[in-house]
């Protein structure tokens, strides 16, 4: 697995990649819904939602290829079960399953230097400060 940067505020590169993937998948999902972003994007931004979805899907595949094998295996395990593979932790609560996460896990200043998961739902977690 790729090592994180040595700076104290560095983020594990695989977590950064997973977050990028998550954001792209969110965009893709939102463009699929008839009452979602598609009508707004079409009306105000002249976007072709089908074309945008195709581009996003291509980028998602490309980024998935860059996941380390262990991370990819876990990602593929979570993906069919949950819309969101990475979930935010806000005020100590996992927003994947709404269960409190141990303070020892989320209270560390260097929490993002390691790839961490919620012990309850298994989602990768990102602590929102």
């Amino acid at each position, binding site marked *: 697995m790729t090592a994180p940067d040595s700076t104290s505020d560095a983020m594990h590169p695989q977590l950064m990649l997973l977050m990028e993937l998550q954001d792209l998948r969110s*965009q893709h999902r939102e463009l699929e819904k008839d009452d979602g972003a598609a009508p*707004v994007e079409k009306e105000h931004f002249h*976007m072709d939602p089908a074309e945008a979805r195709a581009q996003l899907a291509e980028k998602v595949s490309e980024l998935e290829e860059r996941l380390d094998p262990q991370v990819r295996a876990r990602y593929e395990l979570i993906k069919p079960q949950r819309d969101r593979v990475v979930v935010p932790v806000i005020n100590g609560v996992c927003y994947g399953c709404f269960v409190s996460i141990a303070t020892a896990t989320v209270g560390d200043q260097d929490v993002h230097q390691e790839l961490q998961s919620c012990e309850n739902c298994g989602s990768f977690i990102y602590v929102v400060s």
Partner: protein
Amino acid sequence: MKLRKLFTADSVELNLQSETKDEVLKELIQLLGLDDKSEAILFKTLKRRENLGSTGIGKGIAIPHCRSLVVNELRLAYGRKPEGIDFQAIDEEPVHNLFLIVAPPLEVSNQYLPVLGKIAQFAKDPDIPAKLQEIDEAAEFLDLLEERAP
């Protein structure tokens, strides 16, 4: 939801310094007061959205927007570049007014899309771009929102 309530004076910059599209996106992101890591991720997500088509909607207006894990509530910022900046807008004209909208992936109140539409409508109002150019202080921008986007 009133647009006025979604902005603070701190999230308004009337003299953006950037000279390129990437720089101006970063400068707008800085108005949200996130940490460095979150800023970097948000920049990538906004860039990816721009790659799908410019959010420069014409008449000097751009509305870069996305959902991102790095925010836990709907966040907005406004920046003005009086001289204009090349944002690859659909009318190919320079952009002077930029509204940044970032929402978390999951919102209980589901405000993101309505707010995005409301900002677009406000900004496209024929006399709004000229009024935005006349503003001298952040408070005047907030007053304009109060008056024209109730």
